């Protein structure tokens, strides 16, 4: 009996050691599902790790939750896409610096048959108004993510108060929302990166793109040392600076899916 107990204890200790055996330098980065789902991090993180010896552990959540993780001191660095929210975050003292890193754009996705005739719209406002007028099914993220916040601004821009049977708030990430839209033959707004890398399109196709208001800016935030002194500010600063350096910007531009560039570096 005692022997078995010793064996069990030894096993538990060994497993505990195995589980905590990650001694290298690392930071925890809170970022969005769009950057993770597109495969961007798989492409650029090894390059940063090689240059700096710092591993980046990505927790991919919606922008709203990413801000909350940073506010509570659970992430060392932030890479999100809600410029207005990011500036507020700096004003409120949670971050000390914000930098533009890259951009892509939002696109409107819909069923091939295009029941609301979005394809003939000339502006994003016209496109959104057409969907509302036709009361064609539209699936919204509804999760306070950067994409969700941008979508709500675009409805406002079109003079539409979205609601009613045709407007479905899903409360899920970009990928699950696209899965649902594919199953419902609904319209949906997506960031281009997630759409291009998405594998379950069924009847969905790109129906509108190219308006300036669909611009989607990503920013990196340096978090406040004062609010959370325990964070790895030194390592996080290296990451932040690498992203906006020539090397980092080139790594972002080099990331392609099916030959298509998904993020366009624009650090100043």
């Amino acid at each position, binding site marked *: 009996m005692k022997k078995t107990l010793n064996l*069990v204890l030894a*096993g*538990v200790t060994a*497993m*505990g050691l*195995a*589980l*905590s055996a*990650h001694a290298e330098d690392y930071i*925890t980065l809170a970022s969005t*599902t769009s950057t*993770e*789902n597109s495969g961007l*991090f*798989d492409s650029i993180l090894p390059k940063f790790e090689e240059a700096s010896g710092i591993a980046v*552990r*990505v*927790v*991919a959540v919606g922008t709203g939750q990413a801000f909350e993780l940073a506010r*509570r*001191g*659970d992430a060392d660095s932030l890479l999100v896409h809600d410029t207005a929210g990011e500036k507020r975050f700096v004003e409120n003292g949670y971050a000390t610096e914000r930098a533009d890193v890259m951009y892509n754009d939002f696109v409107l996705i819909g069923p091939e048959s295009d029941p609301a005739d979005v394809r003939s719209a000339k502006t994003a406002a016209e496109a959104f108004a057409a969907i509302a007028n036709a009361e064609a099914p539209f699936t919204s993220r509804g999760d306070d993510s950067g994409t969700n916040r941008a979508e709500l601004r675009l409805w406002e821009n079109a003079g539409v108060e979205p609601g009613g049977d045709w407007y479905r708030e899903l409360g899920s*990430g*970009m*990928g*699950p929302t*696209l*899965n649902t839209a*594919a199953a419902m033959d609904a319209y949906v707004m997506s960031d281009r990166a997630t759409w291009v*890398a*998405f*594998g*379950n*399109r069924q009847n969905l196709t790109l129906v509108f793109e190219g308006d300036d208001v669909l611009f989607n800016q990503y920013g990196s935030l340096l978090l406040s040392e004062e609010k*959370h002194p*325990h964070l790895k500010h030194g390592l996080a600063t290296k990451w932040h600076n690498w992203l906006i350096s020539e090397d980092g910007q080139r790594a972002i531009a080099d990331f392609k899916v099916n030959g298509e560039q998904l993020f366009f570096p624009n650090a100043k």
Partner: protein
Amino acid sequence: MENNAFYVALSLLFSLDAALFQIVMLSLQVSLLAVLIAAVLGFPLGAAVALWRFPGRGGVIVMLNALMGLPPVVAGLMVYLLLSRAGPLGELGFLFTPGAMVIAQVVLVLPILAALSRQKVEEMLGEYREQFVSLGMSRARMMPTLLWDARFALLTVLLAGFGRASAEVGAVMMVGGNIDGVTRVMTTAIVLETGKGNLPLALGLGIVLLTLVILINAGAYMVGELTRRRTG
């Protein structure tokens, strides 16, 4: 062929992909360790509730039974708030580590092990009571005897706990963060691949997970049968 989930599952299994192997190993380590810790705490707890009479005992039994249905995402949220830097145990820096996932799964599995072992021990106590009384045994002495004699039933209870741990995704997603190479397990990998629209790969991973769970259950069944036959 590439769009067939069974084909994907088979090629995943036979390619012995290093990333997949790591994910599978982490899933097993986290869930087995959680079940082990929950058993060390939960079996004596269940047996104690069965053996002793104390005020509020009915309430404890109802709570244990009810907590068997605790939604994983609620367990995850509670453990997240506890381990978050702004929370009471934030200093430990446990959030987004496999250790945090083990804690969350212990919270999920403990009520199952305690509630079901309480039930089993209480049944056996009914059968053994006269014998215990004639031997003049104390309650504390009865506990190991009852737990040992209930071992075959408790093995099934352990498997129920392991099933709960290996199947849940809400808790490990929230406290682990699904970090590639660090806290990604089978269930969170399935959620990620579904999000990317890689449905055949997601289902393929699901089939791999199911296969593992079946193997573990078969192993436990065989161990149980062998010992049962040997001890009669």
